[in-house]
């Protein structure tokens, strides 16, 4: 767990030995991590890993059984209300009122944080520019597209200008284009010195936008570091991915028997120290035995590989 403190900036979130039980089930099991100011920190893991529980604890929505949480220097158990004012929480569901327009929803959120009308106007301008909600400010939420709703939802979460933004599965259910657009919005927040803590079970998302990632499994942090460091240190070497016809898969595995291989989905993956040297050799061997390769490529390790190496399971299988 030393990695959890391997940061050099000012710590804005510090979580130490956090434990949360739901009856007999230990949803969060001695979790420790810290987040630096201005950082995008990801909690990556499958459903049920304890990500949402941790986020809801940080937002003051749930109590915890054991541990210590400090936000911006304040102890969560003693200063819950003060801390809630510093956080903009955006859960995965859209928490907007359909019959109100976006501006009215923003006004409602602002009222919860006692924003003055002058500050509210400033913040509306800010979210209009940064999140692009200006074009549909006066449109009722029920008339918005899914992407617009999520942008408005995020806008409502940060209308009070919080230093910390907590996003629970911010892009779940998005199509790839909107997802990329949303990633840019999140990265944009970082440029405004916002600290972002997000949960995701999308390894690409974690890889793409997070400065550091905590990989979670069964309520525990299995690994924590920068994505490229995790991939390098835990993900292992690049692997060769080979796809053949289903009817020839058994034969192909026999031919490639001398290599360390495994089957994931419809692909054979070969783990070797130097894939560039043996890829052609493999291709030739398969062709000579009459096995046609539909695809053969060298793939760098991903956070998915990191998760597999840590848990023995695929991240997406459980998502």
């Amino acid at each position, binding site marked *: 767990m030393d990695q959890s403190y391997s940061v050099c900036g000012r710590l804005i979130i510090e979580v130490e030995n956090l434990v949360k039980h739901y009856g007999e089930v230990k949803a969060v099991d001695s979790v420790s991590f810290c987040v630096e100011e201005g950082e995008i920190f990801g909690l990556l893991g499958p459903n049920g890993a304890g990500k949402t529980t941790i986020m809801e604890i940080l937002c003051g929505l749930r109590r915890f059984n054991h541990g210590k949480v400090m936000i911006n220097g304040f102890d969560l158990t003693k200063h819950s209300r003060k801390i*809630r*004012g510093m956080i903009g*929480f955006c859960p995965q569901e859209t928490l907007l009122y359909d019959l109100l327009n976006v501006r009215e929803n923003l006004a*409602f*959120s602002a*009222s919860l944080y006692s924003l003055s009308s002058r500050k509210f106007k400033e913040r509306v301008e800010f979210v209009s520019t940064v999140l692009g909600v200006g074009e549909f400010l006066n449109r009722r939420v029920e008339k918005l597209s899914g992407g617009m709703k999520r942008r408005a939802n995020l806008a409502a979460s940060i209308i009070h200008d919080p230093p910390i933004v907590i996003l629970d599965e911010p892009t779940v259910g998005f199509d790839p284009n909107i997802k990329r657009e949303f990633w840019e919005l999140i990265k944009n927040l970082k440029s405004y010195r916002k600290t972002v803590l997000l949960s995701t079970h999308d390894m690409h998302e974690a890889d793409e936008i997070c400065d550091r990632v905590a990989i979670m499994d069964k309520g525990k942090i299995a690994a924590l570091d920068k994505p490229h460091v995790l991939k390098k240190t835990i993900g292992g070497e690049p692997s060769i991915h080979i796809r053949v016809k289903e009817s020839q898969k058994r034969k192909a595995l026999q031919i490639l028997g001398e290599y360390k291989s495994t089957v994931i989905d419809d692909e054979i993956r070969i783990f070797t120290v130097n894939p560039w040297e043996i890829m052609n050799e493999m291709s030739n061997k398969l062709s000579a035995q009459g096995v046609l390769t539909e695809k053969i490529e060298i793939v760098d390790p991903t956070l998915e590989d990191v998760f597999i190496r840590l848990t023995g399971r695929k991240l997406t299988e459980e998502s």
Partner: protein
Amino acid sequence: MNSIIGIAVKDIKTFFREKGTVFWTIAFPVMILLLFTAIFGREIPFNATIGVVDYEKDSFGVTASIISGLNETGVFTIRDFTDKAEAMEELNATNVRAVIIIPKNFTQKLYVSQASLELIVDGTNPDVSRLIRDGIKTFFSEFYKQFYYQNYGINYTEPITLYEEVAVVGQQIGYKENIVPGMLTYPLLFSSMVVSTGAIVFEREKGTLKKIRAAPIHPINMLFGKTLAALFQTTVSIIVMASLAIVLLGPRLNWNAPLLIPIFFLGSMNGIALGLIISCIGRAPQEASNAATTIAIVLQFFTGMYFPIDYLPTYMQQIGRVIPMTYAAQALRDIMIRNATLNNLILPMLTLTISALILYAIGVLLYKRWVEK
């Protein structure tokens, strides 16, 4: 304070944009108003308590037999009073529905066919007063016939003269005058309760409660905000209903706003508090909404909103008397029909205040417990 108003404003805006809700908020009471006027504008068997002041108490036992005869009708329950002032006090407090004064020398005058009685009927409810008047007249007519036959052996049909008085100041009271104050109890029960029931359950179901709870506000602020919004919606309902009643029925009533407003407020607070309790107990909006509607429908029969609780069996009347809304319905009638003053309203106001405080406190405790889970 900002967050309380924010929550209230959001709820009020949402209410006005749900066209269906607005429509039914207005349409339902209007339908009920018309329906109940049509259905209950007729006689229904009942039992009424009648006060008797017997200044005669003759040695022949004539007045005693009148009193026991009235008791035996099964329609009247008789209470004895020593003087008229005491009986009138009970009449004004609606503890008796009519007072019969038997004057001195009644028996002596009865033998010469010159007997007279004084009958004072509570005219607050035209149905009840008509039943009492007719019942007493019929009784004395029969009594006199039998008395004359026993003493003179002949039939004689002239009744004892009854000098009637209606114990309500002002003009004649018709059914519409009686039904309108009762109908104005409707928003206190239905609108306030159903609105506040939906308030929290809706937020919880939609997930928006999470957003509110994640904000740096005290949990109680949300209840206050919801209460403000429910009060507003109840007020709209009352104004709409009163306006429609005036336009459609044109009742001649005393619209004493300084007295009516506190009763409306206290009644609404009772309904809202009850709704909050249901809201904190209900798991799903549909469940809570059904519970609130069912409770409101049941309560309306106990509270004397549409017809006097005298029509109910005794045990149901007793249940009605422990329901705060009964006092609101009665207080509205007292103000609008009987021209009651502040002094007359101390008991209902006190009852409504205490019950609102107790119910609201229970609602707050349940909400806090739910939030802390």
